[in-house]
């Protein structure tokens, strides 16, 4: 694939130590910038809290764990938004579609299915999720059809959708809040029971580390097979160590956040465990919504970089006419992109409503801004043709960090909105500057 990482990596033989290092490891400078911004936000909020309240609440296992859960829903949608923006479209309706699908799923599992199966029947969760995902994909496909086959600009279709689906979400239950959701469904939103615990997290971590090592070894053998230039061996080791180090660090962090005492007591009582003195340390570990986000991120990365569909998405974004002349069915691909966006929005709706343990008709309000900002901060260019999934997820983490941080230090919603709006504009401006410079 053509990624600016490779470009910067192979151009320019000389340069200082840093640029030689970046060249050898093929680390994207843009990625570095994003990570830098993220650390800056984290440290900034932490120290601001320290100065204002005496203790910094940001860089704690508890807050970072919560941050990971809150990022999941935006992150899942941001993965889909990458495809939409890469093909020079936009989707302003994701927040409303999230609200609508969450509302329908709420009705299905709380009002309709229990009457058929009885409360708590395992089929309820399965059918609810199925209905939600299919509905989301259909809403997205409808948008895509209007855009591709009827030639209405995506901006207009989804701006209309923003109002239509929010209105529908209200009509479904006349504005009532639907709660509580099915208890199994609620696990998908995280929380102590909706996390995989210490052992589970180590297993996830081990699988991820194995994946990192496999990618590096496999990439090297592929390059060797075709006599392409290889990275220096030390760079390969460095990347493997960095990747595994980050994974292990995350596992340690999340395993360091114990269940609250109340939940532990409840759990002990339910399982006839006598609490030892000083209580029990039960780790949260990875929350299920975070695992969903990781799975979505990996699948979408494979889709974008390793499949024909992904290649066509980039080609359409780079030059729609050329894609057409190369025999790509641009319209059909567009429908699929929006259907996928709708599907991922419904998945985000599952996570969001499960976390809230209820469906409200306002769920997802303003999410479109966070999602678009996440994709753009993550390097998806509004000019089309460029974007990465990992960038969008990092971007979602940046946006959610801003939001969480502002809540922690007591900024109200008005200021939060001002900051998010300004950051969105700033992110696009920085992107424009970046691309001008790298031309």
């Amino acid at each position, binding site marked *: 694939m053509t990624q600016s990482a490779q470009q910067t990596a192979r151009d320019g033989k000389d340069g200082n130590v840093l640029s030689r290092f970046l060249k050898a490891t093929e680390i994207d400078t843009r990625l570095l910038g994003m990570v830098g911004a993220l650390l800056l936000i984290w440290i900034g909020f932490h120290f601001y809290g320290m100065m204002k309240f005496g203790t910094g609440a940001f860089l704690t296992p508890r807050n970072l764990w919560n941050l990971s859960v809150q990022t999941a829903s935006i992150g899942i949608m941001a993965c889909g938004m990458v495809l939409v923006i890469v093909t020079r479209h936009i989707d302003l309706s994701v927040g409303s579609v999230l609200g609508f699908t969450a509302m329908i799923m709420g009705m299905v599992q709380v009002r309709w299915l229990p009457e058929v199966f009885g409360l708590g029947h395992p089929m309820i969760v399965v059918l609810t999720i199925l209905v939600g995902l299919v509905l989301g994909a259909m809403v997205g496909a409808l948008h895509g059809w209007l855009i591709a086959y009827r030639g209405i600009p995506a901006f207009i279709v989804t701006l209309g959708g923003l109002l239509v689906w929010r209105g529908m979400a209200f009509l479904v239950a006349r504005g009532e809040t639907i709660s509580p959701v099915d208890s199994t469904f609620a696990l998908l939103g995280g929380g102590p029971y909706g996390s995989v615990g210490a052992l589970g997290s180590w297993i996830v971590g081990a699988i991820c580390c194995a994946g990192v090592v496999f990618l590096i070894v496999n990439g090297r053998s592929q390059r060797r097979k*075709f006599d392409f230039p290889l990275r220096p061996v030390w760079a390969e080791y460095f990347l493997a160590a960095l990747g595994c180090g980050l994974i292990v660090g995350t596992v340690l962090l999340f395993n360091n956040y114990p269940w609250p005492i109340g939940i532990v007591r409840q759990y002990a009582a339910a399982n006839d465990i006598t609490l030892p003195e000083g209580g029990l340390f039960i780790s949260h570990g990875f929350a299920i919504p975070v695992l969903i986000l990781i799975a979505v991120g990996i699948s979408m990365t494979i889709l974008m970089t390793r499949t024909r569909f992904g*290649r066509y998405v980039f080609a359409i974004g780079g030059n729609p006419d050329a894609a057409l002349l190369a025999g790509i069915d641009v319209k059909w691909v567009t429908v699929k992109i929006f259907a996928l966006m709708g599907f991922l929005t419904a998945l985000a709706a599952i996570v969001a409503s499960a976390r809230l343990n209820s469906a409200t008709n306002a769920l997802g309000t303003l999410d479109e801004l966070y999602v678009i900002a996440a994709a753009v901060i993550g390097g998806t260019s509004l000019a089309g043709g*460029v974007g990465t999934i990992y960038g969008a997820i990092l971007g979602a983490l940046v946006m959610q960090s801003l939001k969480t941080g502002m809540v922690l230090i007591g900024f109200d919603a008005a200021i939060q909105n001002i900051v998010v709006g300004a950051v969105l504009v700033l992110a696009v401006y920085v992107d424009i500057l970046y691309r001008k410079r790298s031309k």
Partner: protein
Amino acid sequence: MPANTGTPLVELRDISIAFGGIKAVDRVTVDLYPGEVVGLLGHNGAGKSTLIKCLSGAYRADAGEVFINGEKVEITNPRDARAHNIETIYQTLALADNLDAASNLFLGRELVTAAGFVDDARMEAETRKIMARLNPNFAKFNVPVSALSGGQRQSVAIARAVYFNARILIMDEPTAALGPHETQMVADLIQELKKQGIGIFLIEHDIHAVMDLCDRASVMKNGQLVGTVNVADVTDEDILGMIILGKKPGQAA
């Protein structure tokens, strides 16, 4: 010079297409035999590119018929054209700027692994092979084609048309951006493809290249066909006369 008897490889019959009242192509008939190079000539805006786009599937003609090996075919999109082994080098090159040379070369026809994933390594290796033949100086395999020079981009477009074993090749000003050496290589390539029995429509403004490479030349003016001549039977002055005056040689002015 092939003996033009039997069924033509391609026949475009009475093709017309208009854009908002302007007749870009007006009842034009041209044909092409295997192993033949037919030059399409005419001033800017004469309708050459538009005509060949009706064969490549980029446009649908308003009227007229297309025959391949004597059989009437419907070409409604670029995929149909590719299915008939028609490959096209567009004047605009039609490259996705954000993708690298290999991704462009295989766009729409990616090589995949047994598991169905795109096989970038193999595509790059194949691209290196064909570029070594077409433009040995080409070395920028891992950058988006937007980072290539005009001539390098043109090489990629040519490689794409040549790689897939076309039987009918359409070249719309293939050497417009090339240096003298690369232009000569394309001329050699055309001779080689001709020997393999491939039929080539060549749109070209350089009259000397036309005299060198083409067997016949069809001249267009204002969307209409002025006439088709055997290049061996006429001088470059005659062809220039056709382009400028819109009259066949020998016709009264």
